[in-house]
């Protein structure tokens, strides 16, 4: 690193100007008393639980999947064998995100892409193959369904498989995410239901889970997807809670369930851990503080069970470089440490080959190993909130909270979180940040090792991107034909008709969706119903 001017202005990603060192006087007065609070006590910035990772290490939770359902099944088993402590199903994005079957023209035009980003699952039969032999009863499972319009299908599929295996749904733990940031802000799909229909889906899922699957995390707002699109950490926080408020206000309006349950349902979120170590750790602390504050001030909720935010964290994929990919193992470690120092409950580390392809088996194993080293060798799990009381980190935490609420307010002035997606306002914020970030790299103001400096590469290991399998499309097409041939057609039709009627009504969508899956209705047919009933979202940006 070049020697720097000691007077140079250095800022965090959120634009917080940093001093060369911090003293007790820097900590904002209102925040000082909070530092005396123990972890597990309101306002929880010091952690979820007093004994932290001693009593419960974070869950090693890796995104995984590609190819045919059986390829994904094999990869998940590999990860579990290697030490993963929960599992995530990943659905092929071409089909899942759009609710298309593989014979949709837009998919046919890109058939080789099918199965590259997750397994193709067009029916409950495919889900059953993917889940074959997996511990859905004892493990925390992620059903996929990260995309709002896809979530009811993915959840119903997972639950149907579990039920068929004889498990009691009320005992099943897991999540499906169903996150707006993913496809309305981050990776904008070609076609999806409008945001108001999406809000209704998520509220339906929250209500359904409260009644039938109390251990399930019905929705999980992913700040990750906002941050990796360009929102700064303070904005990530502000947007996440603005999103939570949309859910809670909707549940409150509906008056079908106690708000505490809904708050608990929304209280499992996901964040991005990026490379600015202390700011990212402070962000997790700020998030817990903000959540308990929000629930109390806006909804009068104080029960620790709901006011205590649970955080899943994924390291920043966009930070991983294409050049000298092994350097990404170090980046992954630092970002993982940011998350752990911030006290998250579960963690996924991006593969070192992230900028080239989906993770290879080795990259996946490495992501698990990084976490195991942190858990087993570093003594990081011994003390809860190790950064608590640091003048620097407490100041950062308090400043982030303040800035994040200011962004939250800005969103409210735009008409709320969903309105700011509809209008493209959030995209504009992200886009501006992206451009600045890019320019900082371009101008040499921000160095990236192996890319803008230190570009000599002596590695004997040639990393060349993992390309999955090449029969995913063919097999999926075959299975699609097969299910159309072999299912009870009248039953499938009736279930689909019923689903359409429910979509047009204000009844909860989940019972009809479970029926549809049970009756072998396929993903694309469900998507057609959505497109017919809800129309298309008016994408505010030129994607």
């Amino acid at each position, binding site marked *: 690193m070049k020697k720097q001017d000691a007077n140079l202005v250095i800022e965090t990603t959120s634009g917080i100007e940093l001093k060369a060192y911090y003293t007790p006087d820097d900590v904002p007065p209102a925040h000082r008393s909070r530092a005396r609070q123990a972890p597990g006590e309101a306002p929880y910035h010091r952690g979820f639980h007093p004994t932290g990772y001693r009593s419960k290490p974070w869950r090693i939770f890796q995104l995984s999947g590609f190819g045919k359902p059986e390829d994904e099944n094999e990869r998940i088993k590999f990860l579990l064998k290697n030490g993963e402590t929960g599992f995530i199903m990943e659905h092929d994005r071409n089909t899942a995100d759009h609710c298309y079957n593989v014979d949709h023209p837009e998919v046919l035009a890109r058939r080789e892409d099918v199965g590259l980003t997750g397994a193709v699952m067009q029916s409950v039969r495919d889900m059953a193959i993917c889940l074959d032999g997996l511990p859905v009863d004892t493990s925390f499972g992620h059903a996929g369904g990260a995309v709002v319009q896809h979530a009811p299908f993915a959840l119903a599929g997972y639950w149907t498989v579990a039920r068929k295996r004889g498990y009691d749904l009320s005992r099943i733990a897991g999540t499906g995410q169903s996150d707006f940031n993913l496809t309305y802000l981050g990776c904008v799909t070609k076609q999806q239901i409008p945001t108001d229909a999406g809000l209704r889906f998520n509220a339906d899922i929250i209500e359904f889970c409260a009644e039938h699957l109390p251990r399930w995390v019905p929705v999980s707002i992913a700040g990750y997807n906002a941050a990796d699109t360009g929102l700064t950490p303070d904005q990530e926080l502000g947007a996440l809670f603005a999103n939570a408020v949309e859910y809670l206000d909707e549940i409150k309006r509906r008056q079908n369930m106690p708000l505490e349950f809904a708050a608990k349902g929304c209280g499992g979120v996901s964040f991005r851990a990026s490379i600015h170590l202390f700011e990212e750790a402070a962000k997790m602390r700020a998030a817990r503080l903000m959540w308990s504050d929000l629930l109390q001030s806006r909804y009068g909720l104080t029960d620790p069970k709901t006011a205590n935010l649970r955080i899943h964290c994924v390291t920043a994929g966009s930070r991983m470089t294409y050049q000298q990919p092994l350097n990404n193992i170090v980046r992954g470690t630092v970002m993982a440490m940011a998350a752990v120092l911030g006290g998250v409950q579960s963690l996924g580390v991006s593969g070192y080959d992230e900028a080239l392809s989906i993770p290879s088996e080795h990259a996946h194993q490495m992501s698990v190993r990084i976490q195991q080293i942190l858990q087993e060798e570093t003594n990081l799990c011994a003390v809860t909130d190790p950064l608590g009381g640091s003048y620097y980190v407490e100041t950062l935490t308090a400043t982030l909270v303040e800035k994040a609420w200011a962004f939250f307010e800005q969103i409210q002035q735009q008409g709320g979180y969903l309105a700011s997606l509809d209008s493209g306002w959030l995209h504009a914020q992200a886009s501006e940040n992206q451009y600045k970030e890019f320019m900082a790299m371009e101008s040499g103001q921000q160095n990236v090792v192996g890319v803008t400096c230190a570009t000599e590469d002596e590695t004997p290991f040639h990393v060349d991107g993992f390309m999955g399998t090449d029969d995913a499309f063919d097999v999926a097409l075959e299975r699609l034909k097969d299910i159309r041939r072999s299912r009870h057609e009248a039953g499938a039709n009736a279930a689909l008709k019923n689903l359409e009627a429910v979509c047009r009504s204000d009844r909860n969508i989940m019972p009809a969706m479970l029926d549809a899956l049970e009756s072998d209705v396929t993903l694309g047919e469900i998507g057609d119903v959505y497109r017919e009933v809800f*129309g*298309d979202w*008016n994408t505010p940006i*030129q*994607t």
Partner: protein
Amino acid sequence: MSAICEQVDAALAGSRPALARLLSIAERSGPELLEIEDRISARVGNALVVGVTGPPGAGKSTLINALLPHALKDFDGVGVLAVDPSSPFSDGAILGDRVRMQGGEYGSSVFIRSMASRGELGGLARAASTAMRLMDACGWSLIIIETLGIGQVELDVMNLADTTLVVLNPGWGDTIQANKAGLTEAGDVFVINKADKPGADVTRTDLLESLSLLNREPPPPVCQSTASTGDGVAELWTALRDHQDYLEQSGQLDSARAHKQQLLVRRTITHQLTHEVERLMDSDLATSMLDQSTLGQLDLRQTVDRLLRELARPRG
């Protein structure tokens, strides 16, 4: 035969690449422009031209996309010319209309062309009128021109189009009066798009009020649409057709076109003259006369008269 004439003939015979090429040549507005105009003039005048204007983001592109299937029932080919602004700083542009209207599903019966305004005020690109006539000559029987409608000067589209459609959104009532005036005068048909958003009714009332001040006979229709779902688009298409029928039946189509032709001639002359003046001012004659007038040897009147005479002198 010149290369340009060959291109024109190929385009007239139905070659899309040739038409596309000619549109680029027209955009450069070089000396070939008149050659192109000459060669197509006999074939021009068959297309109906609909201009679509309105504030950025009103949903013009989305609406045109939604109108296509209706238009294709009445016309065998639809050409779309979509104009977006150039950056005043770099002369570059990001042209995004195609994102909303790929036209792919209609195969060879839709031709979409993007065009940057290249510094032209009035909401149109300088080449727009030639482009329009090229498409007309090549047999595109309906031509839709999308223009930026910002402020009141940006309304040249009404001088090109037979029918001008003004697209507004709920909340339009809150815009400043001066901007309203230009748009209300320009439109033959109005549509409040994004009718799915709150406030469409208030905007309708506002608009009808503004229109009533103009006392137009017959009063222009005010439609409502949600371009993204297609709601109200069929009705809008009918309103556009009705206006065209009205123009034809009342004989106004011909008189309006005559008027537009006059404007076109005037514009072309102005355009050419500007070129000529620039050339003249660069000439040795002008330079020496300017020197003399600076030294006080010639007065302004003498200088101007002498140069004007030079401008009018037939060149060999």
